[in-house]
């Protein structure tokens, strides 16, 4: 029988089992135990709202690590006063399943996203195709390779080259103009 208390009980169970290692994980990223404690505390609230499927423990642990890592990185981005870039934080709340969680993300301000879109448009054709199909369309490498009439290895190499280029371009913009 499922009762209203069921999700709370499950989340409490996770917090006891995974709480300590997650706090260490986040603290390592932030270099601050207190902030890490706050982020992990918020994680249980998010888990309660998102209600990831009970599933097997390995996946729950992966889900928690993923969300904790995102939140820690967002916290660092905010520290760097790039917070204006981040407009929504819907990723942890939206999904009904773990699979959906993996594909979900927050959003960037439109002005910042327009820069990225321009960067994607300017990538060499094959890098652009590969980046789009993997990063945006979320296809697997075998499918991408078929679409691109290339080997999976070549497709993957194109994705990584393209992503590096986008990251460098973005970092360049921030250095020159500060947060958008």
């Amino acid at each position, binding site marked *: 029988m499922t009762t209203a208390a069921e999700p709370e009980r499950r989340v409490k169970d996770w917090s006891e089992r995974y709480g300590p290692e997650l706090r260490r*994980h*986040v603290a*390592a*990223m932030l*270099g601050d135990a207190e902030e890490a404690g706050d982020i992990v505390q918020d994680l249980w609230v998010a888990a309660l709202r998102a209600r990831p499927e009970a599933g097997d423990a*390995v996946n729950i642990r*992966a889900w928690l*690590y*993923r969300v*904790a*890592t*995102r939140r*820690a*990185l*967002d916290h*660092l*981005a905010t520290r*760097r006063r*790039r917070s204006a*870039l*981040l407009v929504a934080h819907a990723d942890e709340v939206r999904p009904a399943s773990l699979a959906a969680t*993996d*594909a979900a*993300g*927050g*959003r*960037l301000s*439109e002005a*910042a*996203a*327009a820069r*990225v*879109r*321009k960067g*994607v*448009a300017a990538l060499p*054709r094959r890098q*652009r*195709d590969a980046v*789009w*199909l*993997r*990063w*945006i*369309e*979320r*296809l697997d490498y075998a499918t991408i390779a078929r*679409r*691109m009439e290339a080997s999976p290895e070549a497709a993957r190499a194109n*994705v*990584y080259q393209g*992503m*590096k280029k*986008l*990251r460098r371009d*973005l*970092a360049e913009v*921030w250095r020159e103009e500060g947060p958008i």
Partner: protein
Amino acid sequence: MMRRCTTCHEEDVIAWVLDDPDADAARKLAERMAACPVCRERAVEYRILHLSAENLRDGRVIRWRRFGSPFGAMRVAASTGGLVALSWQDEGDDAFVAGLEHRYPSTPVVRDTDRLDPAEEQLTEYFGRLRARFDLFVDLAGLGDFQQAVLDAASGLEFGETVTYTEIARRIGRPKASRAVGNALGRNPIPIIVPCHRVVRTDRTLGGYTGGLRYKRALLDIEGRTDLLRSHGQTEMPLA
């Protein structure tokens, strides 16, 4: 200048961002970040970059694909609003994509996944004489008003129906502009779907066709208008 750690692998951060298969990627990433400011900085940058994925998914993009047809390799492209280009000129992928990039600056032009399935299917059916009407959206935004009016008028022509350049000129309220109508149809970015081949001359000769008159003949042949072809002798390119 920040010092790189000896284990800086940008690829690991990208793998994490892309969810490439690696169960413990988040854990590895945290260890890297704890040890190295460069890794930490990069991870934050990739995280922010990754946040734009949703915006990009919903935003402007041009998708294209190539498939085989009786006319040779056919390339078709669409915006989120509808088809924007169709071409079977032997130009290569690079030239086709470069044309789209020029027409849509700052918009990613990417390989299609499955959104252009209907376009390929319907064109294949048309060539197989299994389809008389296209059930597809076209996006003529960005073209001049005059050209849009001409292409709209041509879009109203049914399978097998032909009208003259002068008639199109009359229908768009510019009765003296039949030559300009011919030019506008000659620059039709979405031939076949926007059936400019159904516009002929007043004397029942075919007029022109960008890419070669033999294609206009072949299209009118598909549509059963052999009456228009007979006076010109043999069809130059019988369809496979």
